[in-house]
């Protein structure tokens, strides 16, 4: 079992979209519970649309006081638990982080997202001290342009990539119509029709690459822990 939490205290950083594409991709192979802890309930709304993978369940978080019980219950029944958090610096974020095997910090290649990502990393380090264990994390660049990145984007992402203390996913979640379409059409990238959305195949490939990298990170941390033990 692995708990993967998506956290960035800034709204619109790509948490929900990246959590959803990871959940759908993993649900092709395993049982997955997606906990919707965003007060706007975007994933709960998505789950009412057709096309939800059979092995994926969506649980709506009730409050910060219930998140630990929700993660606990989901962990007992699923191979993967994915938590999509609200875009605020809240205690709910800290509680979810404290239970995580991996924290994904999605951010656009913009200054404001970067500052919020750094806030989350600092909070994560406080939480690690509190629970006395290492919680792996990595920054995920989202809504990126496939070609011709802007100078600002290169400047912002370059600083993270150059810093050894902030692990960064090699895979970026690109700005694709396919990902926006999921919230109106339903289902995951693999369920989209090439008739309705451009370049579905590239979106599917991007989602699979991201999921594979998450699984590799989880396995490598788990192997590291076994070595230490």
């Amino acid at each position, binding site marked *: *079992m*692995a*708990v993967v939490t998506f956290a960035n*205290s800034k709204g619109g950083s790509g948490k929900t979209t990246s959590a959803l594409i990871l959940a759908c*991709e*993993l649900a*092709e*192979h*395993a*049982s997955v519970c997606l906990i919707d802890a965003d007060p706007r309930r975007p994933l709960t709304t998505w789950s009412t649309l057709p096309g939800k993978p059979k092995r994926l369940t969506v649980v709506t978080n009730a*409050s*910060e*006081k219930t998140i*630990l*019980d929700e*993660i*606990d219950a989901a*962990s*007992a*029944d*699923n*191979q*993967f638990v994915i938590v999509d958090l*609200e875009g*605020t*610096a*809240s*205690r*709910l*974020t*800290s*509680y979810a982080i*404290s*239970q995580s*095997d991996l924290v994904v910090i999605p951010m656009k290649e913009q200054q404001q997202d970067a500052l919020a990502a750094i806030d989350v990393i*600092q*909070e994560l380090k*406080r*939480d690690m*001290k*509190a*629970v006395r*264990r290492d919680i792996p994390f990595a920054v995920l660049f989202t809504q990126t342009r496939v070609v011709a990145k802007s100078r600002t984007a290169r400047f912002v992402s370059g600083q993270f990539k150059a810093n050894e203390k902030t692990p960064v996913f090699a895979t970026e979640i690109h700005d694709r119509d396919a990902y926006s379409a999921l919230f109106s059409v339903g289902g995951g*990238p*693999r*369920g*989209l*029709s*090439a008739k309705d959305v451009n370049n*579905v*195949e590239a979106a*599917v490939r991007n989602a*699979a690459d991201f*999921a*594979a990298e998450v*699984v590799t990170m*989880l*396995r490598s941390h*788990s192997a590291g822990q076994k070595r230490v033990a």
Partner: protein
Amino acid sequence: MTDSARKALDFGSLDDFQPSRPIARPEASVDEQRRVVDRASAFPSREADAEGQLNIRAPNDMLTRFKAAAKKERYTYGAFLEILLDRYEKG
């Protein structure tokens, strides 16, 4: 081949991930786990306080009776109000 028919990539079997309880302090109660995080977290709670306040205007002898009855049983005013309401609703 349509995209929806595209075969999912093989991560290798994911059987190494099996349902289980979280590894973080599995022996600790949820309250304890929350308290541990509360001591370190700089992110504040964003949830509304579950308690509020009510200012009641009533005849002084009524207020005195209410306060004396609550004090006699060592109830807070809030707890005593709940008892009175429960009795009222039961008829």
